[in-house]
């Protein structure tokens, strides 16, 4: 059962990454779909990975403390696990209202 489930859903490990405001501008991306490297366990790991991913991500993620993250439409902290995430968004602190 477990083997069938795994092979029947090849996109199960894919996650959508979304970028907003100056993160969207600096990465040149609104969103991308990819499979995260297995060593990325937390949001903090993911931010570090982004900062080492090369141009233009190194520039966009140079100051991870200035970046906020949401998993599946909910704010999360750097310690949050990314394992079950379908959509992870990166953005600066919000400025609405």
């Amino acid at each position, binding site marked *: 059962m477990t083997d069938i489930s795994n092979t029947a859903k090849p996109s199960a490990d894919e996650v959508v990454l979304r970028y*907003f*405001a100056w993160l*969207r501008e600096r990465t040149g991306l609104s969103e991308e779909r990819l499979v995260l490297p297995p060593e990325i366990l937390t949001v903090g790991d993911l931010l570090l990975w982004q900062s080492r991913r090369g141009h233009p991500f190194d520039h966009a993620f140079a100051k991870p403390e200035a970046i906020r993250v949401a998993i599946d439409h909910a*704010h999360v902290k750097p310690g949050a696990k990314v394992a079950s995430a379908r959509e992870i968004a990166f953005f600066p602190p919000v400025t609405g209202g």
Partner: protein
Amino acid sequence: MTVRVSTADFDISAEMSRLTAGDTGIGGVALFVGKVRGEVDGEALASMTLEHYPGMTEAELERIEGEAQRRFKLSASLIIHRVGELKPGDNIVLVMTCAPHRNDAFAAAEFVMDYLKTYAPFWKKETFASGVTRWVAARDSDDEAAAAWAAQSE
């Protein structure tokens, strides 16, 4: 209990009529309207563009509205936030809270605004008359206002 994200302006009178219609238990309605200012630190603004995170915005606004209902005795509430390009003097946001008593209406409207400014995924980009553009930086005072409410509920 309604949240709405819209490029269009809102009609406060019409929204209030709709929100209060038929409920004579309402004794007070508090409203807040946020507007685009014409100058930032003495520099003339040409326009302000609001970006948001569709899906998460609605989820966060509903969460904030639900939290306000949990904390205060409310009859009805409404949050409308505009997105897209706005000009100086344009309305940005409308928060309306209806309650049997005015203290709940006022406190809920302030609570929603403080939380909205800290949690709702909107971002403002200013375009100055000079042509320079700049993403607005978050103000610590907004986080502090939200933190004060969080401390109150402990």
